[in-house]
């Protein structure tokens, strides 16, 4: 197991010292299908936590419950100690299919969160331009989404989430509709972004490699009903060249270990 901290079993995980998102006893069913059962989780402030699991384990459902987009059947979600049940300004969502407005330019798309909050046009476009540059899209401010590649569109989605200055960024499989080369580049950028921006990331993915590559903490969910089966904190040094991580021993060991754990759910 090496340097990987591993906690087993369904018993509640001891709360980290400073958790920004607290999930308690969340359950959700769609008709007869139980999607989530008794989820207890804490998300440490300033860290990137991945929700990882096979399809049908309810990871996206859990993320959308935290976002306030789906109502849970039972249990509570608290952000900064305050219970929430609807979307709020302290959370921002990045969508799997980008969810950009095709009739609006990159700038307007990025500034949309601020537009809804009533920030005046000059100010919000100023802020938007800053984040467009931050995600590497400088020069594309006046383009429309259909003029951009998939990877660039998701960068717009990310800039939109950053521009509202939320504490928690919720990312729902943000790279699954992006081609492989762009995904690699994007993952590297996300690591850099996480260091620069003092934000908490909650990241849903079905890719073990992706989760281990970018996460401080990985929550493994088991399917039908979705439950927390394991929490893993890969001890990988991400300070140097991001390319090196792919050859890091801990990286490879952790990927292997998670695969062994998940294998049983794959036929």
């Amino acid at each position, binding site marked *: 197991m090496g340097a990987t901290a591993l906690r087993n079993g369904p018993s509640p995980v001891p709360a980290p010292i400073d958790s920004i998102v607290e999930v308690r006893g969340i359950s959700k069913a769609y008709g007869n299908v139980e999607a989530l059962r008794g989820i207890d989780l804490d998300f440490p402030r300033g860290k990137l936590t991945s929700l990882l699991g096979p399809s049908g384990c309810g990871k996206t459902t859990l993320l*959308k419950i935290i*976002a*306030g*987009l789906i109502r849970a059947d039972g249990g509570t979600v608290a952000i900064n100690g305050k219970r929430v049940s609807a*979307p*709020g*300004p302290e*959370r*921002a*969502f990045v*969508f*799997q*299919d*980008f*969810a950009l*407005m*095709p*009739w609006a330019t990159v700038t307007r798309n990025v500034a*949309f*969160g601020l*537009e*809804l*909050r009533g920030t005046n046009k000059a100010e919000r476009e100023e802020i938007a331009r800053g984040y467009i540059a931050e995600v590497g899209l400088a020069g594309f401010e006046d383009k*429309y*989404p*259909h003029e951009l590649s998939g990877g660039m569109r998701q960068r717009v989605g990310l800039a*939109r989430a950053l521009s*509202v200055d939320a504490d928690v960024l919720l990312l729902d499989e943000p790279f699954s509709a992006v081609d492989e080369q762009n995904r690699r580049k994007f993952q590297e950028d996300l690591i850099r972004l996480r260091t620069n921006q003092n934000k908490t990331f909650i990241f849903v993915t079905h890719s073990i490699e992706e989760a281990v590559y970018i996460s401080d903490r990985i929550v493994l969910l088991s399917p039908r009903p979705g439950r927390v089966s394991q929490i893993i904190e890969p001890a990988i040094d991400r300070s140097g060249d991001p390319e090196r991580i792919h050859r890091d021993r801990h990286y490879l060991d952790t990927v292997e270990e998670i695969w062994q754990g998940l294998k049983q759910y794959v036929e």
Partner: protein
Amino acid sequence: MTLFGYRVPMMASLLVWCVVWEIVGRLDLVFMLPPFSEVLAAAVDLVQTPSWQSATVTTLRAFAMGMVLSIVIGVPLGILMGRVKIADDLLGMWVNIFSSAPLSAIVPVLMILFGFGEKTIVAAVFLFAIWIIVLDTRAGVRHISPSLIEMARSYGASRPALYTKIILWAALPEILAGIRLGLIRGVKGVVIGQLLVAIVGYGALFETFSRNFRMAEFWALTIILFAFALLVAELIERAEAKVEYYAGARQ
């Protein structure tokens, strides 16, 4: 289309038919059909008569009022049906029946309700145009990607903002298509309404021309009407193409 290596413009086929018309007209085979040149001359004369001008004003006004009404009521109704299941269940059947029913049969009833005047014509335009606008708007709203709605909600959109900033725009290509089809149906409505009432606008003119066998003027008026319907549809199509340019590139 190319002919003997030369590019032939789209409207060329129309020219061929005009020539055929002219020849058949000159042969004097059918009394109904005067030569095309005669019809054109009649059209030139017609548009200079005060009776045509006042009829046009009356017709256009009734058409415009009927269209504005059907858009102002049809688009919100379509959005409501696209968003609220109960509204859809309650109204869906009726909208579908009316959109495919032979509405001309109802126009006499309108006459009883609204009298022999402009109101009946406006009601006829409205009745012909609104259903396709409702149906297309509803389809457009139904096709909005759920994640776009979730996006607006997650960034704190109020209900009015959700409708004015997302739903209306996302459904705009279908709404415009509905309005274009509605305009064409509205032209039908105005003509049928006026023909049945027969004492207003183009209806009165058609009535006079056909009663007195003034076929050249009759055809001239018909051509003017067709040209108007095509022109209106073309204008909306231009607007649609512009919207499709960025809204049509939906994933």
